[in-house]
C-alpha cells in the first residue's frame, strides 16, 4: 500500500489488515480512471443522459430584492436524478465498480438520499445491492426506504451504537471485510480511508467545474462568496473544488448548529470548539468525541448532516484558512427553507437549507455589486414529514390521521 492520502495532517487509511489488498485495488482503479480522459468523458455523458447535468444556476431575484444586499445565485444540484448531488458520486463509483469487475455494491445511508442514489445506480448497472441504515433513520425516513426496496435493494436496519449514520458506516465495513472479493463499498461522502475522500471529491468536482464556467458565462465574473452545507462534506468539496485556486472567492462551509453553541446538541465539528482531532472510521480528522476518544451523539434537524466526523480535506482547508466554517441552528434552517420556498418556489433540502441560512445572515451586509453563490445540494421531498412537524402544519396532520385510519380499517389508500 502506498502511503498517501494526507491533506496536511488529516486523512490517511486506518484500515484493518484484511482490507489492505482491497484498498490497493481501489486506489489503482481510481488513479487509472483519473488518468484516463475517456473515463471522465463517459462519466459526463452518463450524467447528462441519466441525470440532469449540467445542472443550471438560478438567479434568486426575489431573495436578492428581499435582503437588499448581494446578488444571490443558486447552483441547482436538486435537479439531479433522485434529487441530490449524491447521484454524482454513486454513478462515478458505479462506473468504477464495473471497471473492477465487481457484481455487488453496499452503502451506508443517513437520510436515505445516498441509499436511494446507490439503489438506482445498482438497478441501472445490474448490481446486487445492500444498504445499511441506522434503525433510527429507517424509522424517520420511510419514503426513502420504500424506494430503495422497490429498486431491489436490501435495506438492513442497524441496531447497534447510536443507530444512525456512523453505525451504518461501521456495519458496511463489517460486510465489506467479509465480502470484499465481489463487493464494492460505495461510501457516500468525502470521508473514510484514502482514497475515498479524494475519489468522492473528484466525482463531485463536476459541481464546481460547471458552476465556475456558468458564473463566467452568465454573470461575467466569479462569485465573491460560495456557500455549501457540510455533513461529511461531499457537496461542499464538489462546489469548492471549482474555486480553490480563485483566491478572490471566499468559501463558506455551513455545519449543523442543531440547538446551538454550547448545548452539546449539534454536529458542528469545525465551526464550534467542541471537536478535537482523532482517528475513527478509517481516517484522521476532527471528531465530536470525549476525552477518551469515544464518539459522542450528535444532533441535527437534518439527518444528512448528523455525523461525528468531517471530510479530512475540509479539516485541512479549515486549518489553512482557505474555507471559513459557520453553523446554522435548526430554527434558522427551517426559517431559511420556508423563506426560499415562499420567495422563489425552490424547495431546498434541510441539509442544503443550512447553506441558505448562513448566506441570508450575510447577504444584507454586502453591496448590490457583490455576488454570492449557494449550493442547493438537494430538494426537500424526503423532508416532508420533518418539515411538517417543525412548522406544526394542521392540514398535514389531518391527512396523516385520515390515511392511518384508512390503513387500520383495511381500506386501500388513495381515491
Amino acid at each position: 500500500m502506498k502511503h498517501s492520502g494526507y491533506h496536511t495532517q488529516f486523512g490517511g487509511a486506518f484500515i484493518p489488515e484484511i482490507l489492505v489488498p482491497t484498498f490497493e485495488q481501489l486506489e489503482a482503479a481510481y488513479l487509472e480512471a483519473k488518468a484516463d480522459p475517456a473515463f471522465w468523458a463517459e462519466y459526463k455523458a452518463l450524467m447528462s443522459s441519466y441525470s440532469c447535468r449540467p445542472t443550471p444556476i438560478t438567479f434568486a431575484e426575489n431573495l436578492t430584492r428581499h435582503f437588499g444586499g448581494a446578488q444571490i445565485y443558486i447552483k441547482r444540484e436538486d435537479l439531479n436524478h433522485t434529487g441530490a448531488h449524491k447521484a454524482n458520486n454513486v454513478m462515478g463509483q458505479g462506473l468504477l465498480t464495473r471497471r473492477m469487475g465487481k457484481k455487488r455494491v453496499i452503502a451506508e445511508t443517513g437520510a436515505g438520499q445516498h441509499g436511494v442514489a446507490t439503489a438506482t445506480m445498482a438497478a441501472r448497472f445490474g448490481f446486487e445491492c445492500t444498504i445499511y441504515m441506522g434503525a433510527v433513520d429507517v424509522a424517520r425516513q420511510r419514503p426513502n426506504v420504500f424506494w430503495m426496496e422497490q429498486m431491489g435493494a436490501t435495506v438492513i436496519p442497524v441496531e447497534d451504537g447510536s443507530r444512525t449514520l456512523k453505525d451504518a458506516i461501521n456495519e458496511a465495513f463489517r460486510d465489506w471485510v467479509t465480502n470484499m472479493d465481489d463487493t464494492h463499498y460505495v461510501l457516500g461522502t468525502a470521508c473514510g480511508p484514502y482514497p475515498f475522500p479524494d475519489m468522492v471529491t473528484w466525482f463531485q468536482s463536476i459541481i464546481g467545474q460547471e458552476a465556475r464556467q456558468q458564473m463566467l458565462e452568465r454573470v461575467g465574473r466569479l462569485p465573491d462568496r460560495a456557500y455549501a452545507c457540510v455533513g461529511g462534506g461531499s457537496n461542499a468539496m464538489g462546489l469548492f473544488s471549482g474555486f480553490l485556486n480563485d483566491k478572490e472567492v471566499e468559501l463558506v462551509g455551513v455545519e449543523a448548529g442543531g440547538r446551538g453553541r454550547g448545548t452539546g446538541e449539534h454536529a458542528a465539528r469545525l465551526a464550534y470548539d467542541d471537536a478535537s482531532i482523532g482517528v475513527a472510521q478509517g481516517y484522521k480528522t476532527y471528531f465530536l468525541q470525549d476525552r477518551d476518544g469515544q464518539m459522542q451523539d450528535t444532533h441535527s434537524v437534518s439527518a444528512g448532516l448528523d455525523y461525528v466526523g468531517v471530510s479530512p480535506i475540509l479539516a485541512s482547508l479549515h486549518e489553512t484558512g482557505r474555507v471559513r466554517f459557520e453553523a446554522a441552528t435548526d430554527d434558522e434552517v427551517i426559517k431559511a427553507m420556508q423563506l426560499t420556498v415562499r420567495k422563489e418556489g425552490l424547495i431546498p433540502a434541510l441539509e442544503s437549507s443550512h447553506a441558505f441560512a448562513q448566506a441570508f445572515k450575510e447577504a444584507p451586509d454586502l453591496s448590490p455589486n457583490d455576488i454570492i453563490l449557494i449550493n442547493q445540494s438537494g430538494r426537500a421531498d424526503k423532508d416532508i414529514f420533518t418539515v411538517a412537524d417543525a412548522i406544526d402544519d394542521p392540514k398535514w396532520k389531518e391527512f396523516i390521521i385520515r390515511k392511518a385510519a384508512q390503513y387500520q380499517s383495511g381500506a386501500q389508500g388513495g381515491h
Partner: protein
Amino acid sequence: MTDQLQHYIQARRQQKDLLLMTHIVLGYPDFDTSLRVVEAMVEAGVDLMELQIPFSEPMADGPVILRANAEALKTGATVDRCLELSEQITQRFDIPFLFMTYYNILFRRGVADFVGQMKQIGMQGAIIPDLPPEEGADYLAAMRSCELAPIHIFTPNTSSERMQHLSDCSAGFIYTVARKGVTGKDTAFSSELGDYLARCRAATNLPLALGFGVTSRADFEFIRGKADIAVIGSETIRVMERDGVAAVKPFIQGILSGG
C-alpha cells in the same frame, strides 16, 4: 524489538504443543466481573490473554464484541479505569497480558504516553486492528523503546511479501486470521487452511496464533499441530452471557481437557 513475549511462548511450547489465548472486554458487564473472568481463565489454564479497552466504533469486531464494547461504555468504562484494572490484573496473575484496542484510544492520550503507561502497568504487548504499520511509525517506535510487543495480523488475503513486512514490524507472535470477516463468525476450517498456514510460517519466524471462530474442544484439537496458539474470542462472552461467570472456567477446562 523485544523478545520477552516470544521467549515466553517458545518456553511454554516446550511443555505443551498448543497454547490458548483468550479475550475479554474490560468493564463488560462491569469491572468486578472482568476481574473474576480473568481469574477463572487463568485458573483454567489459559496461557495468555487479550484485554480489550472498549471503543465506540469497533470497526473490526462482530456483533458479540461490538455489543460488549457498547455496554461497557454505557456503564462508564473509562480508559483510566481500564488501565487501573489492568495493573491489578498483571500484578495478580503470572501470564502475559496484551491490550487489544483501536488507535483512537492511544492517539487521544498521546501514543508515546499511552505506550509508556502500558509498560508501567506491566502489559506485554498490543493488537491495534485499525493501525497498519504504514500509519503506525510513532506507535512502533514507542513500543520498541519500551520493549513491548506490537502484534500484527495476517489474513488469507495478505500477500507473502506483505506478511514479511508485517513480521518485520512485529514482536511476540503473529495473529493469523483463518478467514475473512469480523470477529465471532463461524469458520469453515477448510483444507486451504494448511496451505495458508504454511505460507504464514514461511513468512515469519514468530509463533503463530490462529484466530477467530474457535468455539469447542473439537476446534481446539483441529488446530493442534497447525499453529502455536489457539485464540478464543467472542465465544467466552457468549458463554458468560448465556450461563454466567461461573460457567467460564469449566468451559475453558473443557476445551483444554484433550491436552
